[in-house]
């Protein structure tokens, strides 16, 4: 049986926008950390200092930067493989279009990011599968976007004189960088994807991840017309007052931008797309990654004790995102989700590894992923993987015949195989 980590990243700071760190740190700190961590000595020093004096936040950035500053995506991928003693594990690396999230352009360029990862695939064609990052702003219109994507998918990658493979097997969306998934410029691409069984994986972690930091852009994006239905989601701009600390550090507006960008990830914004394809000959497989995030899972199950997280989420409805995604899984047979990033939180394992959830039709569409190397901020990949795998292997579920299957086999092997199946996937 082949196992899949459906959600991992190999991009380096070379592929990230120039001022990426400014999305998370005050400008002066971001620039200083960026410069100092250019060497291993500097990175080690920053890691040591942040671990001692930076609290949880500091430790996160230190671990994250250590990998992000790797020389190439090859190094990151080999580092990822080294965390697994399981030679059968395959990895899905998700490329991301981050050129327009208000942090400048990347050094490598987006196409350069793809080229780099394709070089890695040439070296590890069996173990690495790649999802192509999609953003409606990448090309000038929807038709050009779809044609470009189709060309990328259909132009085979020459591994050797006797072997060529399809380079990509899925699409990755990251709406919080500045678009709605129902943007009509994505219509042609989604139709092509549905026609060709190409799966789509979209970031859906409440208030987590990368966001658009251009305030004026966010206001304009809120007006995006729904290309798939008449439903609108313009909720108005959030303008929370920042505390003195955030104000002094220049983080007030950035935090507001992060809250506003949560609208672009709102699970309800996917409903028009699911509805559109519901009655089509072929459905569009969409995975709402992260299952809403570990915080939303904890709140939904009343195990979150921190009062600051109890407030209803920003979005079109004040309903917990974990609950919303569960409902979407029930209502739409082509909806999937994964447990990446949230997995580091061992308290949510029992929420996922629940027969009441996994032994249902929705349970056939929950996928294993870790979100490496983002989760290095929380704990090492090896630990995340081993702890969850052990717990999942211990849960037996009814199989399709009289035998049982473990939750691990279901989430990490069987479900992903269904999600990924297409002519582009091998």
């Amino acid at each position, binding site marked *: 049986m082949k196992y899949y980590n459906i959600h991992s990243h190999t991009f380096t700071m*070379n592929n990230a926008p120039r001022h990426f760190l400014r999305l998370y740190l005050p400008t002066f700190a971001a620039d200083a950390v960026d410069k100092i961590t250019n060497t*291993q*000595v500097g990175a080690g020093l920053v890691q040591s200092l942040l671990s001692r004096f930076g609290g949880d936040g500091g430790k996160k950035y230190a671990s994250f930067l250590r990998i992000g500053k790797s020389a190439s995506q090859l190094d990151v991928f080999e580092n990822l493989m080294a965390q697994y003693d399981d030679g059968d594990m395959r990895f899905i690396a998700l490329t991301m279009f981050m050129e327009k999230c208000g942090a400048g352009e990347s050094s*490598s*360029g987006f196409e350069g990011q793809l080229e780099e990862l394709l070089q890695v695939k040439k070296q590890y064609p069996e173990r690495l599968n790649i999802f192509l990052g999609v953003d409606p702003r990448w090309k000038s219109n929807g038709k050009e976007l779809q044609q470009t994507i189709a060309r990328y998918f*259909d132009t085979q990658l020459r591994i050797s004189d006797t072997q060529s493979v399809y380079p990509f097997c899925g699409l990755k969306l990251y709406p919080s960088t500045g678009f709605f998934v129902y943007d009509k410029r994505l219509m042609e691409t989604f139709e092509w994807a549905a026609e060709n069984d190409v799966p789509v994986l979209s970031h859906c972690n409440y208030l987590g991840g990368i966001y658009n930091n251009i305030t004026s852009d966010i206001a304009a994006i809120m007006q995006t017309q729904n290309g798939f239905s008449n439903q609108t989601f313009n909720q108005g701009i959030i303008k929370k007052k920042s505390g003195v600390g955030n104000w002094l550090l220049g983080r007030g507006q950035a935090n507001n931008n992060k809250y506003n960008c949560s609208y672009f990830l709102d699970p309800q914004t996917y409903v028009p797309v699911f509805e559109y394809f519901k009655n089509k000959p072929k459905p569009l497989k969409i995975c709402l990654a992260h299952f809403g995030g570990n915080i939303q899972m904890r709140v939904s199950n009343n195990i979150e004790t921190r009062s600051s997280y109890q407030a209803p989420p920003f979005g079109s409805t004040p309903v917990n995102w974990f609950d919303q995604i569960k409902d979407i899984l029930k209502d739409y047979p082509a909806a999937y989700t994964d447990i990446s990033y949230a997995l580091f939180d061992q308290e949510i394992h029992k929420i996922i590894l629940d027969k009441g959830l996994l032994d249902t039709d929705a349970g056939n569409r929950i996928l294993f992923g870790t979100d490496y190397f983002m989760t290095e901020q929380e704990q090492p990949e090896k630990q995340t993987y081993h702890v969850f795998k052990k717990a999942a292997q211990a849960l037996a579920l009814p199989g399709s015949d009289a035998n049982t299957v473990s939750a691990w086999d279901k989430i990490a092997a069987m479900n992903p195989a269904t999600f990924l199946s297409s002519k582009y996937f091998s």
Partner: protein
Amino acid sequence: MNWTNIPFVATALSIVICWALFAMLCSFINEGVAQAKAERGRFLKMYLLQQLKDLPNGVNWATLLYMHGAVDLLSRAPEKPTAEISPSLFAQTIVEVVGKSQVAQMARVQAGAAPLYKNMTLSDFKTAIHSLRHSDVMEYFKQALNDAEIKSAASADSDREAAIYNQLLSNLEKWYDELMGRVSLWYKKQVRQRLLMLGILLGVLLNIDSIQLFQFFNQSSTARDVVTNFYLQQPAALSNTANRLQQANDAGQTPGLRDSTIAFALQLDSLSKAAELPIGWGNRFQKNKSDGFWARIGSDMEYTLGIVTDCGDWWCNVWKSTLHILVKILGILITGFVASMGAPFWFEILRKAYSTRK
């Protein structure tokens, strides 16, 4: 009469000798740090990434260049890129990475045209540069290939592709050489800036004040003699070491650097003690020998910074103390500037000065 014995001249030469030795120490340290950080390799990579960034096509060709095995295998570690890529390696590799890139392959498949040359590397390269979007980088590659094709027009059919390929490589190598010339100049500029900052830092940490040194040499003929003799015992050796270090700072590695640096620092320490130079904090001008370490630091700083407490008038004390502190800052800035000029510069002045004495 030996004009170098004139007190004022001797004072000036003594201070120049100190400057030359200090600049050399800074160069040693700078080179050590640069080697540890693989500074030259990073600098080269930074500029190649900058120059070969192809925005319209969304690709940075330098990134793909560094990922290519031929270049990657030259680096000692992922975060320590090679400090040198030969022109021929650059040319051959860039032709290959451009032609074999997926964006180029996609364009080739879309165009559906037959190969333009029998040689696939050349064919892929030409297809790529004519299919991809117009950009500075593509414009240059087109020019290089056009030139190669024109110059090879007279070649026999059987040799033409080889002639075009060789001429293309030659064109790319020439461009790369020109770029490397500029990169070297930029790197030297960065080295000078680093030496300036290092000189100021060491000046503060070790209390190396050029103005105070000048005053000291002006008053002490014994110290002048000690320093001058140190130099005159080994002028050529010192100068050669300084030149080698300068070359290493600008371009290459220096074997045994750590040991050389330590040996040189020990030599300077001995010289400083022998000449009783006013260098360092807290070990010379204490008011009372029985004072503890911090008391000595305090009294040394009072002396060195010229903090005045007995002028009789508060404003007078503040004014004089401020003036002394400003002079101290100026003295250290001069020390930093001295380091940035580089040791060979000062040794050359000494060589000319001492070659004229009778």
